[in-house]
């Protein structure tokens, strides 16, 4: 089981605080919405993921455990 950062795209309003908190995990697309790295979290990116999760005003981010990136 690996940990992954996921986004509920129906909640996200695309301001992008998350990308500042997790630069190694999140890139903004041309429309201003975050693209999330699909690879499992590492020790380093796990910290960033948690920061982004806390900072998101829409509670759109979540960390889940699963087998593969799917």
């Amino acid at each position, binding site marked *: 089981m690996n940990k992954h950062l996921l986004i*509920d*795209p*129906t*909640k996200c*309003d695309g301001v992008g605080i998350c990308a500042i908190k997790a630069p190694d995990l999140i890139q903004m*697309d*041309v429309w*201003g919405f975050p693209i999330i790295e699909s690879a499992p979290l590492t020790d380093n990116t796990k910290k960033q993921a948690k920061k982004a999760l806390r900072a998101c005003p829409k509670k759109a981010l979540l960390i*889940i455990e*699963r087998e593969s990136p799917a």
Partner: protein
Amino acid sequence: MTLTLLPANEIRYDVGNSLFPTGSRRFDLTEFEARFGSSIPLENNADLEALLSRIEQAGVHGRGGAHFPSAVKIRSAILAGAGGTVIANAAEGEPSAAKDAALWQTNPHLVLRGLAAVGALTQAKSLGVWVHEDSYSTRSSMAGAFKERAAAEIDRLPLRAYLAPHRYVSGEASAIINAVQGGSAVPKFFPTKSRAWGEGNAPVLVFNSETLAHIGLLASSLNWAPLESTLVTLLTLNGRYVREVSSDTTFAELLEPSDPAEHVLLGGYGGQWVNWQDIAHSRVHEASLAGQGLSLGAGIVAPLPNSHCGLIETSRIVEWMASQSAQQCGPCIFGLQWLAEDIQALAAGGRKVIGALDRLNDRLPQLMKRGACSHPDGVVRMTNTALEVFASEISLHRKNKCSASSTQPFFPTESEIHAV
């Protein structure tokens, strides 16, 4: 030979196969039972296990697009626990698709038998049918079948129809689950697939209508050997046909010689454009197509008439698909709107083609897997294959030329369907 364009709201059936009655009217319950027999007994665990292994051995799989093995889906629902709701999805979203309408308007009892069987297998507490509120012909056939079943006291579980707003994505499984659980009929984000039927509420299990018809055959006492067949909606200038095709049929055999085409849209508006020569001798069979990286998707086969331009048609489809977004996810709302504009630029031709192509190459990959549902993914896939298959048409358009001789739209974007 002159080709006449039938109104887009008419479909014709291929008659006499196992799923359809002979003739385009509805089988009533008496006719249905005369032909298919009564339902096999599902009284005890041994009966249920026997049916489940028949489903497994026959290789029944989802026919809505994902082609997931039905036995696996049923088994994991059994593990999730009793008390759920099983839904027959009769709301094919795409205006070119007609197989749900064909089944429900001619043989609703077969689908309902499959639905009741899955209900028994999963120990559901209720059954439902999800249908577009404006699919009047389908609804009236369905209502007739419901009445006959009630009068004959066939269903042990409560059965009801759920009316869906007419939008492409309202037939999406997570939208159905959302609505049946009391939310609105828009797709919902589920972090993992398996939780999709659970999530605290009573589980909701959604099955495609054709899948249920196949399960209905297996649950019938008259011995309908599990003929491996698939329903295909064939869209041509001659009209729209729903055919039951056995798995050894090739695409060349499926099409009339009067439908020459160089390119085919396979699987529907979220499907793939393919060169006719690449599939002409392939079998109309999901597993063998998978070997070519192709899929029947929602069962639509649409050979583009040579008189029509693939870029213009792709542009019309993308524009319509963009209008069908449930407007919940940023990448889908803004991405599809942009996509529609740049594909329109390719269709219009001239100087803007190069810039549009550059942006498409850059941005299309960014749109994959970005929505709560797979609506944008389908549009991206279809567009990607259009860019490959119509590469020489794009060069023509750049020089302000176009190979098409017709300006009549080919693909329908309206969808009420009546049997003829």
